[in-house]
């Protein structure tokens, strides 16, 4: 299976939903879109086998992928919507409070240009309640970045490591994220990203504001942040219209396209699995 299918424990969530339990997820016959995306749903820069099915989040992404030459493109909805189906009613935890704020991150190979201090000031001015800042693993590991946010009086967390080449994937990544989102009233970021859509789906009021922190080597193929602001202006600002945001998130996460377990097993190539091999021996 493509290692990107394991990012954020996506394959683990899908395996649980498909009724395979907590076993190691079997190989997926296709590529699962691993993040909200304004392109063809696949991560640029990753090598992919031609004609292998792309399992995408939304109908809009499917149309776009087809238009740029991808075939075998299927809409199944985001793994996060499967997680929501697995955990529809979490134990009604303490009352939602404050904001979970996701400063935009690049991944390991990218370097973010921008001023964290400025962003912190903006967050302080805007957010009415306590703020939890969720840093990406890479930045969480950078002491000085973490300190900046801690000194501002924010709670700083990290959902885990998304994994790379099947190594160190945190299978609980998405679970942790959902738990955190459900603790907060608002979700915010300096860019429209997966986390905002997850937050809306998890019942938070969204906000997108602040310096979008352009990547030094950002790929302009699909229009970048400028296009995101043009196409989804309703989701930008310190306060946005909630019903509109909910409808957009529903479409972008493909919530209505969520498959049933049997349907998912067929689409991922999990319908005729060989007997599970014993991974561990006693000695």
């Amino acid at each position: 299976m493509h290692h990107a299918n394991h990012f954020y424990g996506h394959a683990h969530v899908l395996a649980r939903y498909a009724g395979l339990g907590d076993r190691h997820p079997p190989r997926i016959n296709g590529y699962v879109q691993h993040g909200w995306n304004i392109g063809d749903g696949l991560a640029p820069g990753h090598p992919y086998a031609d004609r292998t099915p792309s399992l995408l989040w939304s109908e809009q992404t499917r149309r776009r992928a087809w238009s740029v030459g991808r075939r075998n493109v299927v809409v199944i909805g985001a793994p996060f919507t499967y997680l929501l189906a697995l955990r529809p009613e979490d134990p009604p935890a303490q009352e939602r409070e404050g904001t979970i704020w996701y400063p935009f991150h690049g991944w390991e190979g990218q370097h973010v240009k921008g001023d964290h201090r400025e962003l912190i000031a903006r967050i302080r001015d805007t957010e009415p309640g306590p703020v939890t800042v969720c840093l990406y693993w890479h930045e969480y590991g950078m002491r000085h970045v973490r300190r900046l946010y801690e000194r501002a009086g924010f709670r700083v967390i990290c959902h885990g490591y998304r994994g790379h080449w099947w190594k160190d994937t945190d299978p609980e990544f998405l679970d942790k994220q959902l738990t955190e989102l459900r603790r907060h009233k608002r979700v915010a970021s300096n860019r429209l990203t997966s986390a905002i859509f997850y937050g809306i789906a998890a019942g938070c009021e969204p906000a997108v504001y602040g310096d979008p922190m352009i990547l030094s080597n950002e790929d302009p193929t699909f229009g970048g942040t400028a296009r995101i602001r043009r196409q989804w202006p309703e989701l930008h600002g310190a306060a946005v219209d909630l019903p509109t945001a909910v409808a957009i998130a529903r479409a972008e996460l493909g919530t209505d396209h969520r498959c049933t377990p049997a349907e998912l097993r067929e689409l991922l190539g999990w319908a005729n699995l060989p007997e599970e091999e014993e991974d561990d021996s006693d000695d």
Partner: protein
Amino acid sequence: MTTETAPAGRITLPGGEMLAWSDLPKERLADGGPLAALAARIVPPGARVLLAGPHDPALLDRLAHAEVTCLLRSHPDAVALAQRAARVIVGGPAGLPDDETYDVVIAAAGLDQVESVEGTRLGWNGVLTRLVAAVRPGGALLLRLDNPLGLHRLVSTTPWHAARDDSAWVIGGVLDQAHPANRDQLRERLTGAGLRPRACWAAYPDGATATALLDADQLDRGAGCGLFDAVLHGACAGAFGAATVLQDPARLAVDALHAGRAADLAPAWLMLARRPGGPTDPGADGNLPVALAQTGQSGQPGTGVLEVLDDPSGWRWGHHAGADAGTTTAAAPFASREAAYRDPAALSGPVPTGRLLHTLLLDAALRRDLATLRTLLHGYAGWLAGQAGADGRLAGAAALASTDNVVVDGERYAVLDPSWRATDTLPGDVALARGLWRFAAALLTGGYAHPWSSTLDVAGLTVVLGGLAGHDLDRATVAEAVRAEAAIAATLHGLDAERRAALATELQAVAPTDPPVGAHSYQQLREAWLRQREEISRLAALTRWTDELLTSRERALRRAEAKIGLLSGSISYRVGRLAITPARLAKRGARAAKRRARSALAPRQEEQQ
């Protein structure tokens, strides 16, 4: 040539007969099919009828209530039909007695086959004039005209102008000015000959053995009509048997229907016209059928003709007293263990309105409209479930309600033709899986674009469709549905045990890269080949990718092994290993003791039980 074989002098030979020739159709429909049903409705009891040209002998049987004179060019045909007719005139149209007129003249093989090779040719107009003269004032003419641009020609691998068989001593086509070439021209000619056209039916899938006769005007307006959709599809699917065609005739016919052009593309038309003046039966043309269609396979039990009449309150099933009505009920359901049987009595009351579910699903799949697919399939599954008994099993027509026999009108679902019924009840999910499997197989083998990946097989797509319908089907249920489908299809086609087993195997093996079962169309064969090619390309790319990945993982493994080797040679590793050895030995010993204890206890436990 003598007339000794002619019974009771019924055969007259005015000259022009063809002695070594036969026109009688080799392929015949049960009880003369829809044409005989139409003729029986048009001809009043005791009427004098002229059958001009060759007709199925069964048609004469259906006109037993009338006095029938046949005009035939073939002498052997005359001998074959003499028993059934009051009189047979053998020769060209010139042989008709000048002083005789008829209440109804039927030329349902067209006018070309009325003319003999002998004698002077009258041409299409000449023959028409002669036949019109034989219609008494107030009488009727039922005439067939073949369409030079008909569906049969569009799908044929042989161009019409290249025919070389024995009947092609002249070839009629659009180039012949004397020959009408469309409905309007035909209407003009009939009017010009002094007749008043009353009704026109489009004949599918070919003029000679039409299994469907549909009112042409209604057909022009009936783009969204589920009945026409199902009848046209049923008539054209597999109509050309083992012959290779250019494209799927059923697809073409249904496309023509939706474009309002099904009457224009009909292989032939049957037009009914009346000669003005004279006494006319007041109810003569009052309630002519909107549709007549054969159901079931010729020669199989349950074959019959569906009749649809147009009432002020809407379309309703006509009570068609087919000769087969008695035999079908006798054959069903206790006399045999066939999977299905036909009960013509189920056809009464209004014809359900709405569009055919199969068409709506295909359209949504082509447009990748998953929301509509979900709504339709949810509705279908919910409606099926509502028909089930307390035990969740479906009986009768509902058990056989696959998407090509279900119409949808808004939120309402209904079986279109409820006369076919399952002998045994089917579990609800098997009946649903059968309907979905049939649709999945048609979608994939038909080469339709759809919103799913090429990696799904037919059973897989059936499960996915089940998911959209809100029912998690498993593959075992789908396999059971395919077995049920094989048994039902075998009954409809009258297969023996051996061919039945072969069919079951064939259906189970249907793959998305196959052309449709039983079809031989170039377009579909080419599409199947393209799908195969695409699949091979996909697999080749996957193999390349896997190979590269394997190489990189092997390299990673070698590095890891080197590291392990290096570390296991280190002093700290050796010291550590020495330290844990007693613990490992103790663990092993404990496990052996546990094993011994367990084996010692096991027989004792068995004894206690």
